[in-house]
């Protein structure tokens, strides 16, 4: 009976992230449009776009390899699994105990690796530019997020997300300097990883400035739908991750009744809304930085995460 319940809960979580991801993207777009005094596309537009793309024929470059065709599925699978590992409305899910933060980072890293390969597969100049920029960003973002994970894990005593979330929600934590630093570091990494301003611009039409978009320029039809859905899932994943580690209040712990779960879900939606709004506000108030400033920006994240870890060591409990 417990096994069935766990299974159902995990299934609900997987479906939930899949269904919510386009909505979050649509919400951010809507808020951004409103802030710019525009009406903006409807909230549900990302779903319509996905359906439209799914229906369309795939146009492939004549020199695209089998890898190019497979990669959208790999990216989607990796990102979806990673997204369903992060506790959203409640911790104590079936998969949570089988995978930890490092596994999530590894899944995302693999997805990125394949995406960069796809960017170079067809051999267009833009794909190559995008891939090289993406990898430059990754070399700095990945160490930064790993250091963040370490500092959090050392405080919580585990890299299991469910455990971390429950620990963070308990009274044992209090206000800690190292957590604050890790929080800022994670937000910087999240902006870079999700191709948001100031690192990349998700809405740009300028081929020469793109990072993420340049890599996927050659995709069309269902391939593009999967790539887009992966990006949307990734944004949701990062928001969920920040919420679950740093704002875990309200998430349902393991073994509770349905009303507690519903409360957790409602609170989770609230957190998504707040984060989506803040993201849109931030993106509207800042210009994109020069490509060679990105290492400085991500370097700051790496240093903060490193300091957080060191501080934890030195003070033994700050």
């Amino acid at each position, binding site marked *: 009976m417990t096994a069935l319940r766990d299974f159902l809960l995990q299934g609900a979580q997987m479906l939930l992230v899949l269904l919510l991801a386009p909505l979050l993207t649509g919400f951010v777009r809507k808020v*951004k449009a409103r*802030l*710019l*005094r*525009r009406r903006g596309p409807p909230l549900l537009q990302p779903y319509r776009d996905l359906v439209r793309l799914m229906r369309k024929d795939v146009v492939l470059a004549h020199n695209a390899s089998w890898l190019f065709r497979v990669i959208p599925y790999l990216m989607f699978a990796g990102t979806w699994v990673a997204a369903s590992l992060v506790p959203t409305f409640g911790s104590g899910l079936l998969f949570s105990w089988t995978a930890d933060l490092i596994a999530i980072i590894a899944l995302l890293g693999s997805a990125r690796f394949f995406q960069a390969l796809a960017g170079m597969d067809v051999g267009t*100049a*833009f794909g190559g*530019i995008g891939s*090289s920029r993406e990898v430059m960003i990754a070399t700095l973002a990945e160490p930064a997020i790993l250091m963040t994970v370490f500092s959090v894990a050392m405080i919580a005593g585990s890299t299991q997300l469910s455990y971390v979330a429950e620990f963070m929600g308990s009274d044992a934590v209090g206000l800690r300097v190292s957590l604050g630093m890790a929080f800022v570091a994670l937000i910087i990494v999240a902006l870079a990883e999700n191709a948001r*301003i*100031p690192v990349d*611009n998700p*809405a*740009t*039409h*300028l*081929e*020469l*400035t793109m990072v993420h978009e340049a890599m996927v320029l050659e995709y069309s039809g269902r391939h593009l739908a999967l790539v887009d859905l992966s990006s949307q899932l990734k944004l949701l994943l990062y928001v969920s991750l920040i919420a679950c580690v740093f704002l875990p209040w309200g998430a349902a712990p393991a073994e509770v009744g349905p009303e507690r779960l519903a409360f957790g879900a409602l609170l989770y939606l609230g957190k998504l809304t707040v984060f989506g709004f803040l993201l849109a506000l931030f993106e*509207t*108030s*800042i*210009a*994109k*930085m*020069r*490509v*060679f*400033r990105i290492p400085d920006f991500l370097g700051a994240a790496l240093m903060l995460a490193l300091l957080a870890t060191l501080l934890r060591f030195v003070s033994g409990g700050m």
Partner: protein
Amino acid sequence: MTAMGLLDHIPYTRLAPAHRPWPRAAVADEGWQTAIDRLAEGTLTLLGFWGEPAAVHMALLDEAAAEIAVVSYDCGSGSFPSVAVRHPPALRLERAIHDLFGLVPTGAADLRPWLDHHVWERPFPLGSRGARQTAAYAFLPAEGEGLHQVAVGPVHAGTIEPGHFRFTVNGEYVVRLEQWLGYTHKGVESLMRGANLEAAAKLANRTSGDSAVAYAFAFARAAEAALQVEAPPRATHLRALMAELERLANHFGDIGAICNDASFALMHAQTGVLRERTLRAADAAFGHRLMMDLVVPGGVTRDIAPEGIAAIRALFVEVRKVFPRLIELYDNTASLQDRTVTAGTVKAEYARRFGAGGYVGRASGRNFDARRTLAYAPYDGLSFEVPVLQAGDVDARVWIRIREVEQSVALIEQILHRLAPGEIRIALPAGRGECEGMALAEAFRGDVLVWLRLDGEKRVQRCHLRDASWFQWPLLEAAIEDNIIADFPLCNKSFNCAYSGVDL
């Protein structure tokens, strides 16, 4: 003749009898070479360079004395000594002359086609001579370890005009940029041939849609100069009013678009509102948002509507309220300043040598504005400042636009204040034999030059329209060197050169 001073130094054989308002002199080899010498040493600025089936003409400007003269070289043999080989700013114009007329610049280092993409029905459409070889276009080489090419356009991801940009890059750094334009060639100069003044004015209007008024203004003044008439004062004031509204709309659009290319969409949205209000005010005042076909030889076709005056005044109330806040936002957003300051610098020396007009020249220390330097009616009676900066970067080009917005607002207010009742259009006199006219008008991008020759029936025999961008595009190639390729869209937008205007 006021500009005899310029021709004192250039040996010429005879003066054209009916070329106004500046003199045109036929020169032989010696005079042609002297003119090239003076261009190359920098005492004169190349203002225009165009061909005819059996002659080429160069418009020269002495900036210090504000004098202009045209020198003409007779190409009976089908060739003329190359100007570009010693004065690079002439290169693209020279290649265009070769494409259109088949005249061969002797000694030229670069004879690749410019406008001709080998898709025309016949080569040399305005000349008479035969065939040309159709080799694939060869881009200039750049060699070195680790260099690779990035080809951008002519079809872009955004909705913009077509142009091809060939970058040679080392990683992110641009080693060389070469532009290849001509995709919007529509044969304006062929269509002009034999057109009556009314049709020709419409063609001039449509050379570049964003500068419709400026082109019509320059064309009308050239035709009036040729026919020795002057538009009535109310007409010239209305023309200037339209020209300044056009400048306002374009500068608003540009300021936002430049910021948008740094992904600062907020500015784009705000200036987009101002641009739209300006276009609506123009619509209310003159019945057309882009004010097309209103400025014609002899005056203007339509008087300003009373509700248009109210709309313009309402627009200015909003501009006064909103625009200072936007300037402050631009100035205080550090992330934006980080992108625009020091990006895409144009050296003052280049701006001077190329005679770059508009914000490109004025942001790099070249103090030239056709409205001031060649003060034509009604600007000779209006007071305004010409902003000039020295930095030459994207930021300076934004600031020139900001200052020009302020000046345009002040100018329109003066015009509205001084607008006296009177006629707005005079009938043109009957043709009095062949005559030639030339005029410059300051478009938002810079000076537009129009040169035309009318026959006895007031039909256009030959008309050349030279956009400011002929001398700005090459500077963009220079400005992007040593910048990174990701900064190109930003630099490009700060130039906002014309495609349609130069593809003719």
